[in-house]
């Protein structure tokens, strides 16, 4: 059972509901207190307690969507490396929260393959996505008809990217509106982890790529938000506890990175409603820094992917 906090007109009503929600958490937690968590149910659905979604949604939307990352990677003209991606044939072995996290991973791999014009591989990931999507009532979003419509757009990457954006939007809306927010949270984590994994793998091959390095440095600000996203229920969910620990390890490594040179405040121009921000910061990472970050991230990625 999940209770989603909504926007209410009257503030006192909101407070009243909060009290009810807190009492529900305590009641449900007391019901769960006798349960034990075995290795097998580590990734079982943890939807039996209440999370303060109104607060968590702020952090949930901070990480870029897989489609947005892929659009940017296309702009950066990065190459495609299949060997660094997840195995799409494993999709049938995931379910519950782990399935949702892997859905995020496969969506990211699919978007990356599309963005680099590797349509055969993208199709393989789309099949993996379709298989997992059916578990959460999302099967129609990645139906055969829709896959065919994507196929027709192979020579029109902009339209294809727009369609993928629409599909991702539908997934988010459906998960939110069907009370599957814990699944959405895991899907976002999976997408974030895989995006970062791809960027670090690309940096391993070309450490001097400044835009990719910039993206890594950005995680200094993003990782604390993901930690907050999962800190809300560490006492209730061993999975969340494990994820927070892994993210904190990642944060420690990120904190050790130097801040880019130059002012972090941009010069800003506004002309006819167009805001242009010019940052002067220069960023670079050494191969050793990339290796250490990748080791930390791999630990989290393996935790999500482990079958």
């Amino acid at each position: 059972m999940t209770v989603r906090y909504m926007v209410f007109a009257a503030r006192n009503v909101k407070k009243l509901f909060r009290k009810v929600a807190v009492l529900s958490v305590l009641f449900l937690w007391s019901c769960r207190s006798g349960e034990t968590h075995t290795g097998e149910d580590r990734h079982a659905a943890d939807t039996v307690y209440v999370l303060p979604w109104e607060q968590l949604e702020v952090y949930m939307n901070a990480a870029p969507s897989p489609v947005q990352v892929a659009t940017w990677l296309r702009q950066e003209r990065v190459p495609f490396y299949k060997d660094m991606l997840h195995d799409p044939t494993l999709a049938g072995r995931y379910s519950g929260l782990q399935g949702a996290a892997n859905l995020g991973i496969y969506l990211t791999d699919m978007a990356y393959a599309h963005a680099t014009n590797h349509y055969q591989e993208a199709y393989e990931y789309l099949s993996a996505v379709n298989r997992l999507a059916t578990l959460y009532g999302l099967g129609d979003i990645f139906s055969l008809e829709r896959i065919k419509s994507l196929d027709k757009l192979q020579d029109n990457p902009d339209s294809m990217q727009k369609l993928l954006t629409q599909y991702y939007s539908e997934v988010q809306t459906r998960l939110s509106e069907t009370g599957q927010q814990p699944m959405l949270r895991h899907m976002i984590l999976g997408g974030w982890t895989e995006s970062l994994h791809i960027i670090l793998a690309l940096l391993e091959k070309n450490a001097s790529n400044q835009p990719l390095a910039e993206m890594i440095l950005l995680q200094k600000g993003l990782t604390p938000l993901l930690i907050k996203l999962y800190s809300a229920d560490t006492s209730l969910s061993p999975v969340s506890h494990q994820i927070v620990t892994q993210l904190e390890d990642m944060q420690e490594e990120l904190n050790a990175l130097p801040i880019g040179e130059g002012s972090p405040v941009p010069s800003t121009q506004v002309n006819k409603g167009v805001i242009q921000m010019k940052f002067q910061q220069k960023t670079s990472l050494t191969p050793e820094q990339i290796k250490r970050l990748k080791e930390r991230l791999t630990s989290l990625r393996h935790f999500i992917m482990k079958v």
Partner: protein
Amino acid sequence: MKPLGYYLVLAGIVWAQSTCRQIVPICREKYMEDFSWDGRYWKAELYNGETTEIYYTFFRGLRYRLIPCGRSTTQAFPHLRIYNANRALVLDTRQQGDRSYWDLELSNTQLLIIELYYPTGEGCAALLIGHRSGETPEGWSAR
């Protein structure tokens, strides 16, 4: 039998939620144009000078459309204060006048914090963000 107040409060909640939800598709339809919308939006009921915060990653090379949506009880436009990740204020759109949307381009990929607020009055406000491939503005290096 529940008291009348219960039904009045319930009706108020339903009304506020539907009003707040209704503005999102209207703004999307009117102002998103050829920008891709990834389905995410932020909405809040803002009272007594309250603000709501949005964390968002903006990529270099893309053009973004920020659509602050809604009107306060005094018919004021919602405005945006844009901060960098270190919370240094970069821009307050109120200084630039009222607009239905703002386009944004950055020379570097950045996590920005956007504060949505009404200069006067109160009510529901929402923010939609769309993106599309952009062109590197003049004077910005194409690395």
